[in-house]
């Protein structure tokens, strides 16, 4: 048999129809009463393709895959620590740069905080307390992680 190259040609159409008919007959379990030898040959091929000799996956494949994913996942608290380290590093760099290149930035920030405190407004005080608490908690968290690697502070 020559495999036709012209996909619009009559030969291609006939052969394709035989292939598709064989596929449908095998799918629907039609009794092989067809006297068309070409379709019968394609049915044998379709049958082999529907029963491939592929070794099955092990029964515990899903459980193993999940275990691998769990192992590959970075714990959230580690991500938090990485994030905090970056923020603190940036603050240190900014502080260092301000101290080296001109203390005006620091003085300005200090005077703004003093003004907020002196104004006696609740919002101002809350802002200062929140900033102090955040910095303190971040430092505590980092300190604890350095002393007890792999464990959370709480």
């Amino acid at each position: 048999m020559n495999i036709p190259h012209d996909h619009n040609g009559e030969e291609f159409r006939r052969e394709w129809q035989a292939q598709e008919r064989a596929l449908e007959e095998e799918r629907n379990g039609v009794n092989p009463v067809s006297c068309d030898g070409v379709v019968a040959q394609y049915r044998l091929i379709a049958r082999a393709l529907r029963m491939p000799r592929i070794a099955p996956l092990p029964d515990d494949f899903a459980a193993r895959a999940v275990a691998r994913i769990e192992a590959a996942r970075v714990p959230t608290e580690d991500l938090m620590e990485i994030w905090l380290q970056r923020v603190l590093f940036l603050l240190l760099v900014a502080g260092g740069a301000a101290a080296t290149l001109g203390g005006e930035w620091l003085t300005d920030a200090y005077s703004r905080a003093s003004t907020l405190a002196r104004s006696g407004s609740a919002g101002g005080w809350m802002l200062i307390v929140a900033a102090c608490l955040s910095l303190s908690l971040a430092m505590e968290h980092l300190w604890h992680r350095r002393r007890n690697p792999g464990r959370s502070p709480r």
Partner: protein
Amino acid sequence: MNVPQPPCRDDDRQLVAAVISRAPKAFEQLIRQYQGLCWHIVSRMVVHREDARDVCQEAFLRVYRHLHQYRFESPLRSWIAQVAYSSALRHLERKRIPLAGMEQGDPQERAAEVTDGFDLEAASADAELVDALHAEIEALPPLQRTILTLYHLDELTIGEISRITGIAEGTIKSHLFRSRAKLRDRLGARTRVSR
């Protein structure tokens, strides 16, 4: 020709939401649901069994990492199959294994076809012939093997296979046609010999 995509099933939406919210056992359920399809693709492309298992795991790892990017525009099975196909493809590229193989020229003149009186049930019971046919299927290049499996075994449409592989529908149809014709050619040669 673009066939409209079937919508994503509701149970797939629920499953995706459960996995993203890290509900216990949700991802294991997703794996169990789609491991068969994933395995068909990967094992047809990657012959080495251990490698195939690793690639299949790798595919599900990628599914897990990128599931939040799934936009429900296509069925979940197509999206997962796409990830499995690209994982297997990357493996073949790393190992420098050709995907489609070389197109071999077809013999111009072949012996006259002998198809009359082909007894399907007798041929099906002929273990030697069936073994030979399976060997011919295994000898096909990875892409052709995969396309045949997705079409015949997983009953995917040409449109779906096209979306999974990123290959034009016309090319998929051509691969299907030529691979099956080639298999019939080999089958015909064997039955002629055995007569």
